[in-house]
């Protein structure tokens, strides 16, 4: 184990402050509403900010100038609401000369990349799994310890990342980079089974049925008895954390975002 000597305070850069000094960072870290307000998801944002600081990435957040992406509104069929948000956000991007965006939320990743583009936004959008995979490949995030080597990790593909946008390898690369043993769920990659949060389900009661979607997915997870269940989406995180609690397995199985896993592995 490496010796930690110091606690560093991280100051997350904000676009408006940089602009005041005439600076334009290379990346916008789009935090998204979940990552900004939800207590569990905020931990993902914090872990990712640590990784960005550790890797020395030139970035900033919009801070209070960020507004909801309109993703849940779009999926709910509230096209007006969505486009009002999108068009206003695109204006802010233009104002700060934003060209490249990275986000921890696959829903926002997808909507920024696909639907915002239809509204004329010219953006290079990365999900944090792609971004972290790249940083690891560039040697900017080096894991030299065996901290996670004895752990078994499984990965739940978020619908809007995997099947929705074809990103399958990058989150797996990130997990493997920790030296942990990776097992696949029975339903994985393009055939992954939803956690139940997408399509604005997060904001409503589920319809009547035999069971809940998150419970069904949690059963897939229990089958492979991992030490850690990894995901790469704040909504999957909430659903599966509930699922693991519901099955009373929270002592045995930790639910982590890939950013948290990596920050843990680096002991940041």
């Amino acid at each position, binding site marked *: 184990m490496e010796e930690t000597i110091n*606690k560093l305070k991280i100051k997350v850069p904000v676009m408006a402050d940089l602009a005041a000094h005439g600076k334009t960072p290379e990346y916008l870290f789009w935090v998204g509403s979940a990552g*900004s307000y939800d207590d569990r998801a905020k931990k993902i944002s914090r872990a990712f900010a640590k990784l960005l600081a550790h890797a020395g990435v030139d970035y900033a957040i919009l*801070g209070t100038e960020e507004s909801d992406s309109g993703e849940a509104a779009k999926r709910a069929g509230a096209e007006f609401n969505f*486009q009002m948000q999108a068009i206003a956000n695109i204006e802010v991007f233009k104002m700060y000369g934003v060209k490249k965006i990275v986000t921890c939320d696959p829903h926002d990743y997808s909507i920024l990349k696909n639907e915002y583009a239809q509204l004329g936004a010219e953006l290079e959008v990365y999900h944090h799994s792609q971004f972290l995979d790249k940083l690891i490949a560039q040697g900017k995030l080096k894991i030299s310890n065996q901290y996670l080597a004895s752990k078994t990790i499984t990965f739940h593909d978020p*619908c809007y990342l995997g099947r929705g946008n074809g990103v399958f390898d990058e989150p797996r690369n990130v997990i493997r980079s920790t030296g942990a043993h990776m097992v696949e769920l029975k339903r994985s990659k393009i055939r992954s089974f939803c956690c139940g949060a997408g399509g604005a389900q997060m904001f409503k009661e589920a319809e009547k049925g035999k069971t809940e979607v998150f419970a069904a*997915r949690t059963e897939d997870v229990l089958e492979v008895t991992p030490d850690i269940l990894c995901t790469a989406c704040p909504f999957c995180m909430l659903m599966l954390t509930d699922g693991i609690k519901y099955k009373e397995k929270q002592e045995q199985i930790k639910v982590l975002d890939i950013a948290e896993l990596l920050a843990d592995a680096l002991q940041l």
Partner: protein
Amino acid sequence: MVAQILFSMVLLTAIALFVRNVRRIVNAISMGRPQSINDQPALRWRKMLLVAIGQGKMVKRPISGFLHIIVYVGFLLVNIEMIEIMIDGIFGTHRIFGILGTPYNWLISGFEMLAIFVIVACIIFLVRRNILKVKRFQAVELTTWPRIDANIILLTEIILMSALLIMNAADTIILLRNCGIGVDCYSFLVSSLLLPIFNNLDTNTLIIIERAGWWIHILGVLAFLNYIPYSKHFHIALAFPNVWFSKLQPNAAMPNMPEVTREVEIMMGSRPESDAIENQGVFGAKDIVDLSWKNIMDSFACTECGRCSAVCPANQTGKKLSPRKIMMDTRDRAEELSLFKRLHGADSHDGKSLLGNYITAEEVWACTTCNACVEECPVTINQVSIILALRRYMVMEQSAAPSTINAMLTNIENNGAPWKYAAADRANWTKELYMNEVK
């Protein structure tokens, strides 16, 4: 001569009926809203080659995929023999392509092999549906008619193929008995195995059997041709254009509504008020006529295979939503409304609608937009596109979303977040953030 005239009349009638049936489906599809789909033609042709002709998605379920390929290839090739049958029927010839000699023998033997494979595959399919009761064929939306439909098709295939083999066997013996007197003899791989059954019959009986086999085969095929447009089996025709016109963007990408962009831009002042369009129709879809023509085509291309519902998280956890049912409802409604319009005029309306009379709000709101159904569909149907159109209608025209969804929308409007948090607190997560400095 009588037989020739009779045959020609039957053939013409069958073709005329078929054309009429197809026109009805085309009419039903064109009830939908216009949507132009013609970008990236090269990619579209490639996708069609891979998915529709190459059955690219069927193989994901190896057993049914493999059997389906046999029936598909068998059906296509055996129908090449239809060309000979038609020529023989019209001109009164007998096995006109027999002049090819040995290659003809090989060709027909090959067809016979396929016929046997098709029969076996159809039997397995029948067993899976009716005896093993494979789960995806037992869902509530598969009411009596869709189940009978599937069985009719499979039985018809078996009868057609058997007629072909029996006809060939009887013919072989007849020819054998006349061999040498200016008649070529052939014997085909599979039907020759049937010879012992027919050997003891006299030639006249055999001629009757051979003719019966011939007529059953050709009449069966023509009847089949006209049954197909009423059945889920129209997918054998529509699968091709349906794949060609399918979405090329990533699964998750949902088209924006340009009419909304226009209004939002006017509201925000980036577009002059004079750009506003009056009477642009409803937002989203309540009925068939509000859907795009492609949505309706999707419904006619649906094979009712249930692959979509078998992977649907809502359906698999016992919710009412079934993407297969969404497609079947859309088709049923399209047929119902187009029939009504044919009888009562193009502007008439029967007062019913897809949303409400067929698909309920409970189904529409259960979807997680996970796109598992879209990914799974062997003929690249987009079920989510219809679900989203219905949601749009409910939200934008009826304000009939679940109350918590309405609350979420209000929050987004008021404070730029789906929850009731102040915009000023958006960056609070950055406070007191420390990191270990690793040496």
